[in-house]
């Protein structure tokens, strides 16, 4: 019999161990992110942006981030916890940008020792990130950046649907970097709104965005407070509440940590979390 790849959210989160490099897709697979926070994993290198990156940092999980963008919500130009940790030196920032990040992920995916990239030539990025080397190309003699492989141990993604065998479908296109992250990672877990029959996958193979995810986690509303295209909209007020607390955390760290406890550490399961959010709130998002 063909083996199914559906696992529980706790089992998936246990794939993440202290010190690993973890890549997070878009929208962030928040059900999995919360489980990782709950397990108090430490010293991660995180490839991520937005609220989930900030939450990982605030929860003490992160030592280093591979960062191309750490902006927050409207009116929050820089993620508050990221900013504090970076400024204090607690957090190491592997400075890059989208093109460099994708080049490094491609090098990892293709088992090449580097990829050449032009974006970043002339900037301070290779100065502040010594892993990026300027070199002279062997064909035309141009100066380019050599980007070393960026190798996630585990990639965590959110998607619309998958079959039991790891064939994944996104609705409205995969997140920004999802496919790059998947290709580079040793193992990929995808949380999905729905598990669908293999026959449905087979009826439209082009719709399969990732063939062969290592594990699938059932997580309806798993991206909350983010959107999941085709299922629900962003919970804008909830995100705003997070950033308000995160911004005030310098003067009031307790309220912020209580919030993290309430939504990530005290909730044993994704179902617990959704209970705390409440049906009315979830259904109000459920328009598309």
């Amino acid at each position: 019999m063909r083996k199914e790849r559906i696992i529980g959210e706790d089992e998936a989160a246990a794939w993440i161990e202290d010190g690993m490099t973890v890549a997070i897709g878009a929208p962030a697979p928040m059900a999995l992110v919360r489980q990782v926070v709950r397990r108090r994993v430490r010293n991660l290198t995180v490839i991520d942006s937005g609220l989930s990156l900030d939450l990982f940092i605030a929860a003490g999980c992160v030592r280093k981030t591979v960062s191309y963008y750490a902006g927050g919500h409207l009116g929050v130009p820089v993620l508050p916890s990221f900013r504090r940790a970076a400024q204090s030196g607690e957090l190491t920032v592997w400075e890059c940008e989208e093109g460099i990040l994708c080049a490094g992920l491609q090098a990892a995916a293709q088992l090449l020792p580097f990829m050449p990239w032009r974006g970043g030539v002339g900037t301070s990025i290779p100065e502040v990130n010594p892993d990026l080397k300027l070199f002279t190309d062997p064909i035309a003699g141009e100066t380019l950046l050599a980007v070393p492989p960026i190798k996630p141990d585990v990639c965590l993604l959110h998607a619309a649907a998958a079959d039991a065998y790891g064939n994944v479908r996104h609705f409205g296109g995969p997140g920004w970097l999802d496919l790059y992250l998947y290709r580079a990672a040793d193992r990929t877990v995808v949380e999905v709104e729905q598990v669908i029959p293999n026959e449905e996958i087979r009826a439209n193979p082009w719709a399969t965005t990732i063939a062969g995810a290592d594990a699938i986690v059932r997580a309806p509303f798993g991206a909350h407070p983010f959107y999941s295209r085709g299922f629900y909209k962003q919970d804008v007020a909830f995100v705003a509440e997070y950033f308000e607390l995160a911004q005030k955390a310098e003067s009031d760290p307790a309220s912020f940590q209580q919030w993290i406890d309430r939504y990530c550490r005290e909730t044993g399961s994704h179902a617990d979390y959704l209970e705390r959010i409440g049906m009315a709130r979830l259904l109000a998002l459920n328009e598309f």
Partner: protein
Amino acid sequence: MAEYSNLELMACVLARELTDGEIVRVGVATPAAEAAIRMAHLSHGPNIELIFFGGRMNVAHLESIPMPAFPWDRRIVRWSESYSDSGHRFDRLKDWNRHVFFIGGIQVDPWGNTNLIGIGKDFSRLRFRGPGSVGTPTLSSYVGRYYIVLNNHDPRVLVERCDFISAYGWGRGGDDARSRIGLPGGGPRLCVTPMCVMDFAPGTRRMRLHSIHPGVSLADVKARTGFELNVPEQVPETAAPTAAELELLRNRVDREGLLRR
């Protein structure tokens, strides 16, 4: 003449810059640019293609293109014709000479180099940690031209030297500042602020006053600019929004008045 906000004026200035058939990349947090793109598309740019967060679209047939659109906006799904930018964003840089984009910065120097990394001397102990470069280093290297758009004209932003450069404009100056290091893109065309429009003078490629917005004095501009600005003898006034532009902007783009707040 109708009253209008600074952001509305900036939107009109930028809309006039866009040409039919271009591919315009829409970012976040530059509301004037977001409005400008929509205005151009609905008026003189029916063949402009918009790229919003992975979706590529042409929506010139719509009665209205409301703003803003965020990554989580379901309209992206409704409007898109392809997700060619999603998961294979950098697969075809060769047509980026037809692309245009808009960039902000926590610091901008006289040659249009911009900084999104941070402020301070020591990278490991920044005084202000910025959001990071997003895709601006690659975009600014390849696109046909781009526009620096600042929501505030501030001497702490417009500085003689950026602490860090995340997107290379005209380097330390000169017409060959870009070709010398092999960048195929055309570089920054204008810097548009709530006070004025600046360009990059051929020869030096140092920032030069191009036009001053109605009601703003040269002295004000100089006082609010943190570097010595190249000022030609004649500096025209920026053309105010026409009635048609404002009608388009307010009734078909910015119906909620985000640019007037």
